[in-house]
């Protein structure tokens, strides 16, 4: 798979990362290197290997369904830039 500068820009846009033309070109070279690495690995025959979804072969531990948290709003909001009526305030967003 070949990556283009516009692919890089699209991904940056989706990730909310601002990059200029030069950075996009530089990132393209680096990402292409990673893609080459993946391609090399994909050449290995893995048809008999079961896919893993996690690097460690351990399983998820579960928590009993119980409320263990108490209200600490005041503490958490003490580090928020702006709060009002118990709400966190953010720049207006209307889709």
């Amino acid at each position, binding site marked *: 798979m070949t990556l283009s500068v516009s692919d890089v820009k*699209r*991904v940056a846009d*989706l*990730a*909310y990362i601002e990059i200029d033309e030069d950075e996009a070109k530089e990132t393209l070279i680096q990402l292409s290197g990673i893609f080459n690495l993946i391609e090399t690995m994909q050449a290995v025959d893995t048809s008999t290997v079961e896919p893993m*979804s*996690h*690097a*460690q072969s*351990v*399983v*998820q*531990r*579960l*928590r*009993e*369904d*119980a*409320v*263990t*948290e108490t*209200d*600490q*709003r005041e503490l*958490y*909001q003490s580090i928020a830039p*702006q709060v*009002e*009526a*118990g*709400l*966190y*305030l*953010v*720049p*207006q*967003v*209307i*889709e």
Partner: protein
Amino acid sequence: MQWEIVIGLEVHAQLSTQSKIFSGSSTAYGAAPNTQASVIDLALPGVLPVLNKGAVERAIKLGLSVGAKINSPSIFARKNYFYPDLPKGYQISQYELPVVQGGNIQIQVDGAEKNVRLTRAHLEEDAGKSLHEDFHGMSGIDLNRAGTPLLEIVSEPDMRSSAEAVAYAKTLHALVRWIGICDGNMQEGSFRCDANVSVRPRGTEKLGTRCEIKNLNSFRFLEKAIDYEARRQIEILEDGGSIRQETRLYDANKDETRTMRTKEDANDYRYFPDPDLLPLEIPQSWIDQIKQTLPELPQARRDRYISAFALSAYDASVLTSSREMADYFDATLKQLPAQAKLCANWIMGEISGQLNKEGIEMTACPITPSQLAELLARIHDGTISGKAAKTVFESMWNGELDKNVDAIIEAKGLKQISDDSAIEKLVDQVLAANAQQVADYRNGKEKAFNSLIGQIMKATQGKANPAQVNAMLKKKLDG
């Protein structure tokens, strides 16, 4: 051209756990803003999600109820998008290997049975809430809802009309409540529907371009939104246009759908397995254990009502529309075996009617099943007429007397006259006093018969057993 509407539904059912899916915060509805939002829900750096066993258990329950495959391992994935009410910048959801795969739901539409296939049901967390009232040009964020466990239940595009879509949604709604995994409260957003709608020329196989209508929070809106959307698409196609794949919103005030976002600016969510969560293993022993706790399902119970009690498919469907009603029916019938139809009629009629009228749930019904059974037993043994029973019912409902059925009948003097000799005496008296009507009847005036019945009932204040009066009068006049 004849058009065929094709519908698939995505339902978000909020799971009835005490705590959130990845944190120990409470999920109780209506708390003051951000008082149920912990460091995990706020996505502060360094925190890790820990999966709630109760949420997984509820997902498995649904899977077992619809005959689906339970995936093990099952994988959690990050769905990436930016919005202030999603502080992590991604929603933890499932992509590959959801907990529930496949399954089927039987629906009834106009007396016909139809199967709707499920694609999958996956666990995910809800987002917070954005309030756009004016906070000096800013938005307010409440993260109490963030992290609330949801089960997204996705159907195949198997429905062909808004009526089928509503029947499916109602059946699923009843099922999640029946098995106790979701409270089904649509006003509070515990059960939300998205509808995928497309149209195609009848008789063709290829699916048309679909539009997704988001956040339909009532069955009525679901029906109206689909009807509007199908009409809109058909009009465009008949005018030679083409449908653009997009997400639309239903405006209930205007009864129309409008564009929310098109496919071009749709998010590419860049799903990938969440490295914070390990693969979820669901041992068969756990599945078996959950299976033991499942109640008899609505479908099975409906079939049993039809085969064991000879109830109609309609009666059986109504009685199994909620577990509370079915349990009420079973409990009543237990006291009064072999009177299924009588019990069904009263529960579907008087009881349901009063509950609806007063807007209360079956669980808060002031008349217990055994009290109802006592009343129905008095109809069955001829002590009171059906009409008098309604009077007694009203007294019981309103808590008059001590709710002892026999005491109410006695106090109100509603006991039916069923003694043959007493009735004969009454009939004789009325016949003697109405010679003209007797003559009229014998001359072929059928109406005179009813007038005579009326006189007899009036003379007894409606207490004479109507069937006996009828038979006796016929015997006297015709015999």
